[in-house]
């Protein structure tokens, strides 16, 4: 047999092989990524005059962050599809039959999706800063906030992938879920303009905390960023644990 390398380097090489492969898969099917990059740019451009008139501060942060959260919530589908496709192509078993461990497989899947989510949001923020005049007082806080939000989306998308049986089911769940989460969170309209009941329900939406976190990060407000970030991290933990429980059977089989 043709094997070499220590256990650590072998693990690193396997993760690298998986990551490279999953990046290749994403590159071969970039439609979703492109859609979720262009959609918020159009939203920002179209809603800018309206929000400028309606909001005393000019509404730039609301416009850019709201559009970002709305489009990134829709991109839950990217995270879900990444796992679901392995099942529909029957490639998950092929991967499991190799010496790659469950952890290596999951890292190899997660890293490219996380990179895509970050890229999408970075492009929207960049457009917001360049074309809509968004001023960023806390770039590092914003980076942290984008990372937390991306991880939350990644984990939530993975959980959805364990709950559905087909791509169409996933599309239905993510489309409806994203609209509810984003709208209720105040992504499309500021909460002050929404009905009272929506304002009361808003904190139940992860989108609400994402918007609060990202707006605070843009302002350079560390405390205002970290509080919502902790709540999103908790949501991610719950979703991640549930996803792991859903995958437990498969993981147990891997260890047999």
């Amino acid at each position: 047999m043709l094997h070499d390398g220590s256990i650590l380097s072998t693990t690193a090489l396997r993760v690298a092989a998986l990551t490279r492969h999953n990046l290749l898969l994403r590159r071969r099917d970039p439609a979703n990524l492109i859609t979720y990059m262009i959609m918020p740019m159009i939203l920002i451009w179209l809603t800018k005059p309206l929000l400028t008139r309606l909001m005393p501060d000019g509404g730039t942060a609301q416009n850019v962050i709201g559009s970002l959260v709305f489009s990134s919530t829709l991109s839950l589908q990217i995270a879900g599809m990444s796992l679901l496709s392995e099942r529909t192509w029957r490639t998950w078993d092929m991967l499991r039959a190799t010496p790659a461990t469950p952890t290596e497989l999951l890292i190899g899947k997660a890293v490219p999706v996380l990179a895509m989510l970050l890229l999408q949001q970075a492009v929207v923020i960049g457009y917001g800063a360049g074309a809509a005049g968004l001023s960023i007082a806390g770039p590092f806080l914003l980076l942290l906030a984008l990372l937390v939000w991306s991880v939350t989306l990644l984990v939530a998308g993975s959980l959805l992938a364990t709950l559905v049986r087909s791509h169409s089911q996933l599309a239905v769940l993510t489309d409806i879920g994203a609209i509810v989460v984003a709208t209720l969170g105040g992504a499309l309209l500021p909460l002050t303009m929404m009905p009272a009941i929506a304002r009361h329900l808003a904190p139940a939406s992860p989108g609400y905390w994402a918007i609060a976190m990202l707006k605070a990060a843009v302002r350079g407000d560390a405390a205002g960023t970290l509080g919502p970030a902790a709540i999103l991290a908790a949501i991610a933990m719950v979703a991640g644990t549930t996803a792991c429980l859903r995958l437990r059977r498969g993981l147990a089989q891997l260890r047999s």
Partner: protein
Amino acid sequence: MLEATGLVKRYGQVTALDGFTLSVAPGEITGLVGHNGAGKTTFTRIVAGLAAADAGHVTIAGLAPRRAARLIGVAPQEISLYPAVTVRESLRLFGGLHGLRRKPLAAAIAEVTDALCLGGFLDQRIASLSGGQQRRAQAAVALLHRPPLLLLDEPTAGVDPDTRRALLAALRQRAADGAAIVYTTHYLPELADLQATLALARGGKVIARGTAQQLLSGLPGQVTVDLGDEVLTVPATDTAAALAQLLATISKPLRGVSVTEPSLDDLYQAVTSAA
């Protein structure tokens, strides 16, 4: 190389394996034969570490299946490759996961490309290939890292004769090099080509095991004598003795005599259709 003893696997009320026992030695090709639902695929999945047995024991070179993943090459019944990547990219991925890189990986890809005649479509995406080409690509993934145990589930389903010949030749070579091969098929002449030993499965267990010659020796052949106005057909385990006995009793002129030895198909029918 492979030792499986008393494997039991249940899915709810359905018992897929019910004391499945099979051992395969290095260099041996074992044809695993049986009706759909006989437990062949479940057995393959357990050996590959993709499912856990409810009872029983399985080792590959003394290791539990998941610890032996490096020693196993798997080609499942269904095409299980990424449609959007090329054959070469698929081989690079799975070679990389088996610890191959750079020159050893390039050499391994060259070897399976040559053995399975993949050269013409190595850089085409899996989705653009015919069913037979996809089968070849899938077999190449299984063979790539030169595993000492190959689990192939109907690897020639839907392939053309040239592909079949190439694959069987590659497998014979791997067996000659010492690999143990479990070859699941419904196409029995392939097993004769491979000079495989047979394991006949029914109801979740192996009910007959041995070489084709050993298993066929218990089956009757058939002696047919054409007398012109009538044809006499006699089933017989010892066809030569039966023919001699038959000829001794016939006074009419013979128009023709034929002796049919039992085939693997007869064996399959006899074993799998028994109550």
